[in-house]
């Protein structure tokens, strides 16, 4: 079973999830964790480790992370040592919407990543006024 986990600085992860839920009305299979200004990376890693211990049925993680190289990315990478999963950076609202729809479709991690990456790119458009 693939579990999607959103990680972001400050309150971004939680807000992305709740905003996407507001639009598409579902959030099954997705969890979010914020890295608040006053928290160190150890605090976020501890939250993920506890989450993992509480959800033994998860055998693969897909992390949707705000920025490549940032603390959330680093924590996700540390967490995945000895576990199965992938990290996709540059999460945006389109990614979240696709994730919330895709997460309920029973896709495997590779297929999910492909869909999410396409959705993220597709969501960036320039329209001349």
């Amino acid at each position, binding site marked *: 079973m693939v579990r999607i986990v959103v990680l972001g600085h400050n309150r971004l992860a939680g807000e992305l999830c709740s905003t996407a839920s507001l639009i598409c009305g579902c959030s099954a299979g997705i969890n979010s964790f914020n890295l608040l200004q*006053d928290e160190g990376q150890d*605090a976020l890693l501890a939250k993920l480790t506890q989450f993992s211990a509480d959800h033994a049925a998860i055998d693969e993680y897909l992390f949707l992370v705000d920025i490549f190289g*940032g603390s959330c990315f680093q924590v996700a990478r540390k967490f995945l040592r000895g576990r199965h999963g992938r990290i996709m950076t540059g999460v945006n609202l389109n990614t979240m919407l696709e994730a919330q729809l895709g997460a309920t479709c029973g896709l495997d991690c590779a297929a999910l990543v492909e869909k999410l990456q396409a959705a993220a790119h597709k969501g960036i458009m320039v329209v001349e006024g």
Partner: protein
Amino acid sequence: MKAWGNDGEFIIRIDERLLHAQVLIGWVSVLRLTGMVIASAAVARDPDSSELYRMIVPEGLELHIADETGAAEWLRTWRGDRDQVMVLTATVTGAEHLLTALGDDAPARVHIGGLYHRDGREKLRDGLYVSPEENQAIRDLLVAGTEVVFLPLPGQKPVDIRELLPAC
């Protein structure tokens, strides 16, 4: 004097998160850094952490990872502009060791970029928490003549740490 350092001096930054978004985005681009040193024995002896930092470092930025003594040696041989180098250490003690190893080459000022919440630490500012031991270690730096400022991002006004430290 520049807000973040003195001309011709590299910056020593104490930041528990070491090389992270604030540094990668905020500092590297503003200062046009060309050299970055992670002075940490823990990172230097952990191949996974070293690999992670090498993966995320921006193109064109030379990254050196070593313990404090090795970092000081590398800094002495750096041939580029000294004020385009940032040295990251995760702890106040690490900064102390680094300054000692640098001797006469040590900069006059050290930045604290972030020390985060954990048990036993007292909050001084958002993103700045210190334990009694760290409080004392910072005071030791001050007594030794090092200026210590709290400065998470380059656009901010540096805050003299003496205005923030609780009484021992």
